[in-house]
């Protein structure tokens, strides 16, 4: 059993700006824990989490893989970058956060160099314009507003998957039923021949949550 990261240093004010870990975070932790021994055997050197929010997930991965891996995070919300850094320190994991739009500044240097890519995206169904506004503002709404089928931001990352994943790379993605999980898996398979499977799913209140694992 890998303990959930200590988040006691984060206060109410932090959660005014940064997404507070919830069921979607915990299902992702559970999926990663389930794969912990496989992940250790793969010896990933570069882990990149998009949208770390509080930094809970990356710190958790850090407690699985220790100092054998570099932990990068990229968040459009500068407050989230700071929280990711602090949560790393609180849990003795060195996290290197970057404030950026998705993977933009890493695209050339991390070309097929990401061993472990993680994304709990803004998957909630909203108006399309709401996504654009939320991302531009870089605030907490950017953590959930996802467009008409909740895939507006996720689609951008899926389109870049082939240029991100290393030959042994894997990608863990959180989704909800309304995102049409089967369809998104099929699209990635057709486009890049990257295989995927649902490694965990559960209902949490009104949400039906999935964790999809993509592998070359």
């Amino acid at each position, binding site marked *: 059993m890998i303990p959930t990261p200590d988040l006691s240093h984060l206060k109410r004010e932090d959660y005014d700006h940064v997404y507070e870990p919830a069921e979607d975070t915990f299902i992702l932790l559970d999926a990663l824990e389930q794969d912990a021994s496989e992940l250790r055997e793969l010896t990933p050197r570069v882990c990149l989490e998009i949208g770390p929010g509080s930094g809970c997930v990356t710190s958790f991965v850090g407690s699985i893989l220790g*100092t054998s891996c570099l932990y990068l995070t990229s968040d459009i919300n*500068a407050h989230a970058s700071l929280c990711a*850094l602090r949560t790393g320190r609180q849990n003795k994991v*060195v996290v290197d956060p970057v*404030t*950026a739009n998705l993977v933009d*500044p*890493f695209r*050339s*240097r991390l070309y097929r160099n990401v061993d472990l890519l993680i994304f709990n995206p803004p998957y909630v169904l909203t108006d399309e314009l709401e996504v654009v506004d939320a991302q531009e503002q870089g605030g907490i709404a950017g953590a959930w507003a996802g467009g008409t089928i909740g895939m507006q931001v996720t689609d951008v990352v899926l389109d870049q998957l082939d240029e991100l994943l290393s030959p042994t790379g894997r990608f863990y993605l959180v989704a909800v039923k309304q995102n049409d999980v089967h369809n998104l898996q099929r699209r990635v398979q057709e486009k890049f021949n990257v295989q995927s499977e649902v490694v965990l799913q559960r209902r949490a209140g009104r949400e039906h949550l999935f964790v999809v694992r993509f592998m070359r």
Partner: protein
Amino acid sequence: MVRLITHNLLACHAKGCTTNNFPLKLQDVVVEVREAEFNADFLRGFLPRIEWTALVNAAKELGDTSLPLEMPEMVDDEFLKNLHHVLLEIHVDEGAMVCPNCGHKYPIMNGIPNMLLAEHEIG
């Protein structure tokens, strides 16, 4: 924190800036050295992913000349110790990274680089 390992992975991505956009030049930096746990396997595994000249030059800009100009074929303990220090223990807490091509300035505050672009700068 912008450690040199991260600096080695970041390129300018402003609109139209596709050549000579790496490595970013460190400017007005405040540097702090923080000890990190040594892990030889990680260093050996990460070595092939480093842009060597960029790392050597960035270290030099920060006053560290312990790395050889060419990546050595034989990796010994002393080399790994120096590499560990340069990649993982030198932190840029404040300052900026400037694109050598278009001059775009990415600020570093509280050890975090801000790589966001304004809407008209997005490619």
